[in-house]
């Protein structure tokens, strides 16, 4: 025995260990098991669970994991006294633990419950906790937190801090209310947690468990390979990701091989995965020809054809708004040029983030231009990657180098920015991510930055007496935060992430420098800010004027323009529908059916809602509203139908029609240029009432011979009668009847 070694007796066995060794380690090194919960070999012992109590012939029992062994010490690990104390401790822990917990249910290896069974403490003598449980946190995509199953062993805290050096988890609260917390007690999903999974693999119970991605699975493609964890960990982008986490989620990522020319995803399709290009190049493009819905070719009869030729229409052309966009936003690292919507992605690029994280339809078609190897992943893996510092750094570099310039210049007001200034901004802007529901700026806060939306949708709302008033939805290619910076320095509205949002943040100093350097941009921004403020004031004034509950129930309060038909005047001649069809190349955008309000029929036609839910989620930003009231559907709509599904009133329809246009499927192939590939195609696009903005009065109203059809602001139109009337509430029979009617197929005339 060297001088650095000591001798002690454990359970009647003489053992020799190095000085400084704990009793627990000394016993384990000599094959004597001591049960424990809070202690792990790779973490600093803390002795909080006390399950490893041993008798060292001292005044009280001691925790073996923290007690240093002493020369000549006599340790009893399994005496009656120790067993009784350990059993009581486990019984007490079991009273505050759901049985069986999630881990025990799924894999049967909850350490506490296993130990309780082993030592005969499954049935606790003490009553279970009667106060409300501490609840669950479902906010993380990969880890489920059940606070009520937590035994406060601190293994997750030490795993996060000592092993991963992330310092996200700590204890919070006092006494019976004590629990673990992420950052300053934020939900795990919106904390700075990087989803490395260390806490989950450290947890002895079902408090932190791996979340299965329910309902998602890879289709079995011929060109798919399962990926080994060590192969993933060898990739630079997975550096720092927990191997255990990847092992648990290895079915959520696969390696795919594509031959040159093969289509990887198609625009408009539903999906749930993102792709990371490992090798090769792809073309990303919108193949749907750009066009507004028309059925000119479908016109039958001489008179109809003659009319079609004689009447000039300017559907959705708005020279006065100067809205001709040069860039189409897509779910990828680049925007597509309006005139030639094709771009190239290379190894290291990621696409399909919005589809993967928020289940939006695919925004563009991607075709392999060379043989490619890709990682296709589900959102729990993508979420981990996006929180991974190495991967984030690579994406940031890619974005700053390749996409920031086109992204900034795709916003009309920034068109005049010089390349030099953009280069300057490249190193200064921040890319920030927000989870669904997270507040980005709060009304009344100090305005310290300006934001460009890169991914996702942001709700801009104002809190007023009586509730929240949604002012706008902002998506990729748009921006917010300028009113506060240009005005009094305070936020005038609250901006909240509606889904997984990524923003480009320009701080106030850089923003001001930009305005000073480019007076034209200042002018443009100030003009936009004024328009937004005026529009907001108008909405707020309307919001205040008619506080009638029943009126709200029919959603009429939310409408800014309703097509109402006075049923006492309407002879049901359908001239309104015919006029609408005539005004839109044979495709009517209204159905003479809907809810009744007093003697008025609220026709099925766009209500120009204040809270235009239809605009949330458009994968290519084709549905929008600008300075005018009408909802505009741009000609690059890919026909995915999300806006139609989102409209609560069924006022957006999808139509198939034939169109001559450039078809991008073949662009990029050898010897094929953009101008070579024109041919007739059948496309599907969304339509909605555009108020016949190019003709002044809406055609339905203009063509009504009986003065029955009116486009009205509901709060003004119904204001007088709201005092002495009650909206007609449909009976059950009427409700069923209306359900039948809304199924009326097709509205082509």
């Amino acid at each position, binding site marked *: 025995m060297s001088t650095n070694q000591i001798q002690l007796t454990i359970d009647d066995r003489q053992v020799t260990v190095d000085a400084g060794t704990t009793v627990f380690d000394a016993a384990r090194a000599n094959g004597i098991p001591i049960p424990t919960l809070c202690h792990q070999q790779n973490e600093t012992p803390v002795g909080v669970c006390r399950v490893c109590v041993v008798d060292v012939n001292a005044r009280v029992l001691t925790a073996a994991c923290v007690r240093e062994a002493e020369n000549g010490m006599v340790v009893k690990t399994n005496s009656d006294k120790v067993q009784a104390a350990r059993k009581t401790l486990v019984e007490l822990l079991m009273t505050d633990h759901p049985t069986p917990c999630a881990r025990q249910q799924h894999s049967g290896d909850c350490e506490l419950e296993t130990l309780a069974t082993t030592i005969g403490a499954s049935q606790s003598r003490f009553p279970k906790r009667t106060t409300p449980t501490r609840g669950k946190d479902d906010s993380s995509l990969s880890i489920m937190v059940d606070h009520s199953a937590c035994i406060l062993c601190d293994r997750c805290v030490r795993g996060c801090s000592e092993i991963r050096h992330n310092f996200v988890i700590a204890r919070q609260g006092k006494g019976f209310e004590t629990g673990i917390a992420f950052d300053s007690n934020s939900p795990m999903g919106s904390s700075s947690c990087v989803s490395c999974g260390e806490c989950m693999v450290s947890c002895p119970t079902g408090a932190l468990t791996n979340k299965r991605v329910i309902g998602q699975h890879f289709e079995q493609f011929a060109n798919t390979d399962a990926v080994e964890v060590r192969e993933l960990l060898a990739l630079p982008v997975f550096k720092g990701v927990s191997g255990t986490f990847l092992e648990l989620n290895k079915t959520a990522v696969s390696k795919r091989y594509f031959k040159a020319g093969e289509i990887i995803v198609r625009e408009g399709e539903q999906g749930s995965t993102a792709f990371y290009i490992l090798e090769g190049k792809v073309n990303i493009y919108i193949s749907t020809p750009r066009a507004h819905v028309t059925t000119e070719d479908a016109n039958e009869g001489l008179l109809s054809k003659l009319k079609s030729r004689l009447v000039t229409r300017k559907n959705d052309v708005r020279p006065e708004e100067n809205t001709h966009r040069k860039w189409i936003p897509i779910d990828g690292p680049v925007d597509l040029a309006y005139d030639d919507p094709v771009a190239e992605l290379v190894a290291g690029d990621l696409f399909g983030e919005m589809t993967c994280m928020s289940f939006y339809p695919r925004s563009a078609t991607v075709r392999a231009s060379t043989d490619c190897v890709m990682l296709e992943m589900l959102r729990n893996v993508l979420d981990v990657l996006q929180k991974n510092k190495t991967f984030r750094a690579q994406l940031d570099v890619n974005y700053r180098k390749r996409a920031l310039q086109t992204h900034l210049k795709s916003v009309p007001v920034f068109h005049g920015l010089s390349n030099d200034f953009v280069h300057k901004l490249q190193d200064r802007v921040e890319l920030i991510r927000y989870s669904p529901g997270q507040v980005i700026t709060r009304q009344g806060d100090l305005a310290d930055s300006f934001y460009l939306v890169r991914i996702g949708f942001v709700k801009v709302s104002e809190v007023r007496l009586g509730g929240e008033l949604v002012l706008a939805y902002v998506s990729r290619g748009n921006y917010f935060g300028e009113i506060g910076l240009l005005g009094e320095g305070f936020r005038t509205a609250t901006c909240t992430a509606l889904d997984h949002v990524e923003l480009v943040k320009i701080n106030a100093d850089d923003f001001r420098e930009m305005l000073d350097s480019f007076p034209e941009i200042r002018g443009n921004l100030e003009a936009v800010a004024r328009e937004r403020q005026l529009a907001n004031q108008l909405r707020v004034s309307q919001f205040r004027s008619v506080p009638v509950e029943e009126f709200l129930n029919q959603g009429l309060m939310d409408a800014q323009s309703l097509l109402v038909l006075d049923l006492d005047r309407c002879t*049901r001649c359908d001239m309104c529908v015919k006029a609408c069809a005539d005004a839109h190349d044979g495709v009517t955008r209204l159905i003479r059916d809907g809810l009744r309000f007093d003697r008025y029929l609220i026709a099925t036609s766009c209500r120009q809602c204040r809270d235009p839910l239809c605009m949330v989620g458009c994968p290519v930003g084709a549905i929008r509203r600008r300075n005018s009231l009408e909802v505009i559907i741009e000609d690059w709509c890919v026909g995915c139908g999300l806006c139609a599904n989102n409209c609560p009133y069924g006022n957006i329809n999808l139509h198939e029609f034939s169109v001559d246009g450039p078809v991008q499927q073949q662009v990029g192939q050898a010897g094929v240029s953009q101008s070579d590939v024109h041919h007739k195609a059948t496309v599907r696009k969304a339509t909605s009432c555009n108020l016949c903005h190019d003709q002044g009065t809406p055609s339905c109203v203009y063509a009504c011979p009986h003065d029955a059809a009116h486009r009205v602001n509901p709060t003004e139109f119904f204001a007088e009668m709201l005092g002495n009337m009650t909206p007609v509430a449909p009976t059950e029979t*009427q409700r069923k009847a209306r359900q039948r009617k809304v199924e009326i197929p097709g509205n082509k005339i």
Partner: protein
Amino acid sequence: MRIDETHRQWFIGSVVGLLVSSLIYAVYAGRSPQGPHGGSRMGIIFGVVGYIFMIFAGLLGMRKKFPIWRIGRAQTWMRGHLWLGLLSFPLILFHSGFSFRGGALTSLLMTLFVIVILSGILGAVLQHYMPRLITQQVPMETIYDQIDRVRGTLLGEADVLVAELSDPVKMQSIALQSDTEEIGAVSTVLRLELEATEELRDFYEKLMRPYLAQVGKGMPPGSVLSSAIESKQNFVRLRTLMPKVVHSSISDLEDICEEKRELDRQSKLHKVLHGWLMVHIPLSLALVILGLVHAIGALRY
């Protein structure tokens, strides 16, 4: 079109026009030794002005063919159609000197004109009152062209309901799921199943299904279900026969019949509201063409 205070200007204009033309006619008639007639200068002027008004009234039909042409709102054209069309009648009477006699063409023209004017007045009256009547009497109104489709949907729903009620297994299942206070509901259902189901099927096959399947939009003659009272009596009788657990399904069947009655009512009212046009439009067209023939013939010969 509803004729209300918004027509005031047109009404005043028409009355003034009538008074002025009457005054002129009175002077003209008093100064004509042979009495007023269509061949005189003043008669021709009345005839031309009256014919122009008729042409304008007739152009409403053309206006409707081009609903989005920005050539005046359709309601303005409709008001013009009503009031100028009406004013054309006294003008043509002034033209003819209130004579309905003459050649065959003249007599035919005057007869047509009277019919057109009367049918037009009938149409105006119908358009004034009927929309409100439809609104009140058909709360579950649908689009007229969709009536047959909705009727088909109703028939499908009724078929499914009756098939369920006729299926002993499903009946048992309904009884088991129902929160009934009746002890032994299941056995009651099973005991009554044979006789009650037969009765229900008989009612459905002989009365209700033919009523719902009625092709076209008119009321089937003689069906007891076309009367709300008789229908109610039939369903009350069915309820007494069938166990309580299926009463809600019986009510659904009753609602389907009620909706079918409404569809029939809507169909009937729609035909009344638009039927007069079958007389008015072709005769108006004939009147304008024959009027032109009359004018050319009279001026040439």
